[in-house]
């Protein structure tokens, strides 16, 4: 129980810090580029980063690697979906929405079904 609580408080602390960083970044874009800037940076994080991060967060790699790989691969994956779905349905705007939902679903499903035994094994190795 105590262990569980400390894990939660650590997670809470980390989330708070991540939110602080996000707030600083969004505030910067809002101040310098107005609402357009804020939309662009939030969209950038949401579309290019989030879906791939949901996949990479499961792997046994360093936290900064998870973030970096998610961005670098998301930059290539997301437009691929948008472009080809866009060709099929003839709408870029709808294609962005569909691609996002699709990739997010893949990310969530991957996160959920990524072999639990692997996660346990990796976290055990990490503790050692």
């Amino acid at each position, binding site marked *: 129980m105590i262990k569980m609580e400390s894990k939660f408080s650590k997670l809470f602390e980390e989330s708070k810090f991540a939110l602080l960083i996000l707030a600083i970044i969004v505030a910067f874009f809002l101040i310098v580029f107005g609402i357009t800037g804020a*939309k662009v940076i939030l969209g950038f994080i949401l579309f290019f980063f989030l879906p791939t991060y949901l996949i990479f967060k499961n792997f046994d790699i360093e936290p900064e690697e998870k973030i970096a790989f998610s961005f670098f691969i998301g930059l*290539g994956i997301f437009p691929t979906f948008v*472009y080809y779905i866009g060709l099929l349905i003839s709408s870029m705007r709808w294609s962005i929405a569909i691609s996002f939902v699709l990739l997010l679903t893949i990310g969530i499903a991957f996160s959920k079904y990524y072999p639990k035994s692997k996660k346990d094994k990796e976290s055990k190795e990490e503790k050692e």
Partner: protein
Amino acid sequence: MENKISKQEILILIIIYLGMLYLWTMPFQQQKIPYGEGDAAIHYIIADNMYVTDKPTLKLPETNPVFNFQMGNLFMPGYLFYCPQFHTNFAISEIIGGERVVPFYLYLALICTGIFFSVYILLRKQFGAATAILASFLLIFSMRDRLTYLWGQWGTAVTLLYIPIILYTYYKYTESVYNSKEKLIYLYMTYILAAMQFLFHPLGIPVVLGMILVYTVLISIKEKKLPINKTNIKHFIIGIFLFLFIICAFAPLQVPSHLGRINRDVVIGTPDQSEPSTQIKEGYDVSKFARIFKWYDFPEVFHGIPDFYFSFKNLYYGYWMLPFLILGILFLILRRKSKDLLMLSTIIAFYIIVHLDLINVYLGAKMPRLFYFESVIFYPLMAIGITSIALFIKTNDKSSKIIKWGIVAAAVIAVLLINAKPTYDQFKGAYPIPMRMDQAQFDASNWINDNLPKDAIVMYVGTPTFLNRAWMHAVSARMAVFDQNNIVPSLDKNINRTNYILMDYSLYMIIGGEQATGLISELQQWEKNNTKGSVIYDKNGIKIFKTV
């Protein structure tokens, strides 16, 4: 080595990065008008076409005559020649932001400044926070990077972004093999990231491949065994297929064209003198082996980059950083840990690649463009050189840390005093009028885009510079004709081809003076003689006529 990245470090990193972003976005903070060289306008046309039409660009917009004779897609003329991911991201940004200028350039700034984090990731765990932050900081003021960013060779800027991160994953994999804790994820990440890099621009691939090969040789000599063995060779082979699968599946129409270009441009043996891209510079002695000791001298011509670009003095604010570069290289040679060999392999591989002509391998007109990647090699080595000074001073652990950060602080101050001002000035004054459109030209171009039929052909009269015309054409997204050589057209041959004439007095009204007044009256005379139709737009010194 301090391994865990603290919250304070992340905070400092983010603040420095936002400073970089502020500086790099100065060209469009006040003047929200597109800019760049001809390449930039072409990228804008392709990406913006997706935003304006709400459809992905499969075939190149027919409004641009440049696409008709430009070396586009080799096997499917008229079709997109860049892998679609490159331009689609710009269009996505425009759609998210809901307009055509700021989101486009903001996405560009984000990916071009991404090199800050890419280099940080490469160096942080291997060389510590001081070296990593310093290298990233130096890149803020990198003239080579900012020129690529401002001019418009944006594909190269994105491919550059991937080089450090690919090296990092490969290094992590080889380390895991030699430490008998093999982590295949890093090997597969190397291939996947290389595929992503290829999708943005293939030019980075030979560079990163060369670096990986040189590193493999060096590390194999050090460890006395190859990182490839009987058990993992299958993963190396699967990785190659994975790479090929990704690039072919993600860009099926463009990959053959890219490979065809490589086949066309790379010449082994004597280059064909009739081909501009493989012509040897007049007076250049191919057998001149003195070039072994030169960095920037190369035989090809027609690469389209000014000579200014190939000089250490010009690009690195004099020679004051050269000793640190040399010190960094010497330090790595003396220490020779595996991480040192990785960094050494970057400069060795680059040297070999840009000297391949000495063994009769000619890379064609693209070869000089490889120098775009030089900063990502030099700045980390300089940062290593600067921080290595602390290691030569014998002290205890605590004081050595203080000395190291003290040296970094001194380097930062020197950079701010020497490199920062020219950087600030260049960003602040980037593309002034008439190197970029004035507000009246931009408004008129937007009006054309919103109001004229898709097949309209507009003749520009009075628009002063080529860049003005290129960008007005890009923003209006309509076919344009103009007299290349004269502001006041001496020939009226274009009139028969157009159904609209745009009379542009805007700049001359802004600058005023005798010369401008003279030009205005010449243009008025031309207008009187040649425009018979009705005025459909008349604002801020720009008139658009519909010809009969």
